[in-house]
């Protein structure tokens, strides 16, 4: 028998029992679609997070008060430490480490912001002029915080889009004095609408000079110092230098340095593990589909006993019989895999149309794995029936029934 005959034979078998073939295909299709769409969702989440970080561009190192042994995640700066993280610390880091383009001390508090009759509570972020560049903020009108001595807090404020709208409606906020807590601050800028960013929704925030922020919260310590590095700086070296300088100033390591990359890495690995677990659970259904295929193949073998007997009598080797039935199983499952790929891709496409913000894409490894899996399922679960067929005794098989 030529290979062409073998393939033709397998094809014919699949096509002869259309309904049966379609049903056993269906199981594989469902499994493949499940795995594909779930990994696509996981991958989408991963890309979203990565983009959020990448949109910040330059590499950033966060220094916060308090020692946090765990890596990754934002240290919350729980509790007091013997030494505060001060504006002076920020100045020293900026001056003494050449790779640091800017050291931006940040203070965070929540206050009531009011203008005439209207009031709302908003996060108040104390920062410096460089914060605009670091976070890629775009101004709708006016300007960002002024260039001034870091420890001089001017009474000015830049409003996030939503805060500005809630306090002023359509009126022009620039030049008006608003009240933050019990302080009067003049509005010098309004930000463009941006929407949710990781960790901080800038539309809801009011920005003021860091020294004013610290006075307002009556704190001597900043919430964190963000170090903006020049491109291609060696982050690990910088972190080492930061530690040396601050330990020298504080006499102990009572602060935590985390690079943006470390945070991203730990987030990515968590998301990656989640995706794998979910995909693994979904692959159980592929195994079940394989069992279905095996069952159908077993039936197919017992139905075609006389056919097999005839083939053997005509001189087909055991090996060829095995190949025929394995091919049939592989055909079934890989057709299911391909069909599942088509349906899954369509689903992913629909998902992307529905949620344009998240880039839902089935990762290449998943596509490859699914195709390989479905083919593998057919071959693995096809082995037993094929082996049974190849073992048939031609005489008995022809006599059968």
């Amino acid at each position, binding site marked *: 028998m030529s290979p062409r005959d073998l393939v033709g034979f397998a094809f014919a078998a699949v096509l002869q029992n259309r309904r049966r073939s379609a049903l056993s295909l269906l199981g594989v299709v469902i499994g493949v679609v499940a795995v594909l769409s779930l990994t696509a969702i996981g991958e989408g989440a991963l890309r979203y997070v990565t983009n959020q970080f990448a949109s910040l561009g330059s590499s950033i190192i966060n220094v916060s008060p308090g020692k946090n042994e765990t890596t990754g995640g934002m240290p919350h700066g729980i509790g007091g430490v*013997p030494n505060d993280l001060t504006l002076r610390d920020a100045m020293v880091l900026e001056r003494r480490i050449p790779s640091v383009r800017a050291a931006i001390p940040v203070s965070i508090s929540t206050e009531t912001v009011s203008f005439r009759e209207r009031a709302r509570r908003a996060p*108040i972020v104390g920062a410096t002029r460089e914060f605009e560049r670091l976070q890629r903020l775009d101004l709708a009108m006016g300007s960002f915080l002024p260039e001034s001595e870091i420890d001089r807090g001017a009474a000015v404020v830049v409003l996030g889009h939503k805060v500005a709208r809630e306090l002023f409606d359509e009126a022009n906020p620039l030049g008006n004095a608003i009240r933050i807590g019990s302080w009067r601050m003049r509005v010098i800028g309004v930000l463009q609408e941006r929407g949710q960013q990781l960790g901080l929704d800038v539309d809801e925030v009011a920005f003021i000079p860091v020294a004013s922020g610290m006075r307002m919260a009556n704190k001597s310590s900043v919430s964190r110092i963000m170090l903006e590095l020049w491109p291609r700086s060696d982050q690990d070296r910088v972190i080492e230098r930061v530690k040396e300088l601050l330990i020298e100033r504080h006499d102990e390591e009572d602060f935590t340095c985390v690079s943006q990359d470390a945070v991203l890495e730990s987030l990515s690995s968590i998301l990656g593990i989640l995706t794998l677990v979910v995909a693994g659970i979904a692959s159980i259904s592929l195994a079940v589909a394989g069992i279905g295929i095996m069952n159908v193949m077993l039936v197919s073998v017992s139905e075609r006993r006389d056919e097999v007997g005839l083939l053997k009598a005509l001189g087909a080797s055991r090996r060829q019989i095995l190949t025929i039935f394995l091919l049939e199983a592989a055909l079934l499952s890989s057709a299911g895999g391909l069909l599942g790929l088509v349906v899954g891709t369509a689903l992913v496409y629909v998902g992307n149309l529905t949620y344009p913000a998240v880039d839902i894409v089935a990762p290449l490894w998943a596509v490859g794995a699914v195709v390989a899996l479905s083919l593998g399922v057919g071959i693995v679960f096809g082995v037993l029936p094929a082996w049974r067929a190849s073992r048939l005794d031609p005489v008995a098989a022809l006599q059968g029934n």
Partner: protein
Amino acid sequence: MARRRVDFTDLMRLSSGALVGHPLRSALSMLGIAIGVAAVIMLTSLGEGTRKYMVSQFSEFGTNVLSIQPGKRKTSGVPNAFRGTQQKLTIDDAEALGRVPMFETVTPSALGQARVEGGGRGRSVFVHGVTADFPDVMKFTVRQGSFIPPGDPRRGGSVAVLGPQLKRELFGDANALGEFVRIAGSRLRVIGVMEPKGQVLGMDIDDAAYIPVATAMRIFNLEELQEINVVFRHEGQTEEAIEVVREILIDRHRGEEDFTIISQTEMLAVFGRVMDVVTFGVAVIAAISLLVGSIGIFTMMWISVGERVSEIGLMRAVGATARQIQIVFLTEAILLTMMGGLSGLLVGLVATVAIRIGIPGFPAGAPIEYVAAALGVSAVAGLLSGVGPARRAAELEPVEALRTE
């Protein structure tokens, strides 16, 4: 020709006969369902185990504890990084709350992080500034010496109590009582060592130092408390207790609600909701394999009807009604799925027990509603996958059916 009534036993014999006649085929069909059911049960028991574990962690303190923290948050019991307040949470606030009869204990606490030096070694740990009642709230006890003495919380003596792990790290097996430790530049005398307790809500309370709250505020130069813990007398008075705390503090803070009250019950509720969603999601994903399994059964039933056309014709000829034929095939399908479901249940439960033995202290256990759902779904799957083939069998013309072959 006399029509003989085909009775129930005949039908049963016919249904089970088909199952036994193709043992491998039946076993495989069952296996498909069994895998799905086992997966659902195992995964949900993992989810449920996680939830129960957390609940036991929380309720160790009893559910009659409130935690008050500075700063108003919109979040539901999950602290975030946006801390900022106008009014501070002070020891005076704690004292004011302490005067309410329904509150059993009120403990102010301030938290710091510092290197604790003693016995020639040093270790960076959390330093809790607390009062004498703190061990009662946290449900842990002193092993040696005594805890911080009761008295005016505004006056902190220079004393420290060490967690067992910190004590071991600094002093090894030597006696630590009466020795001095240095925390952030202050010399404090060790007056007690705690019993080991381990992790509580992710905080290692054994690797920590405990000092009077006023001392902590002085050496860390804190102006406000980290939190105030209130234990009220009767469980189930959570709502009232929250209301009382809120009134007193708003009154003291010039009408501003600039603090957050977190109750154990609320924390538990939030966590429980999250776990429910996770468990449900995982169960649904696992249930996809149940669907695939029932498609497999449908296929097999379809084939089986095709194979047994002549048998069906014969049955009809000897007086079985179309309805009876339908029942025969439905029964077969339901038998298949139920047996698959039950064996899956067995495997799932064995796996759950194995998890319990493998991870002692982890209360894995499939929630009964999921077990019931998995079995229910497999029964329904049997019905649905049986209906089509059964109808096909019933609609066969007896004469035609006999003529095949």
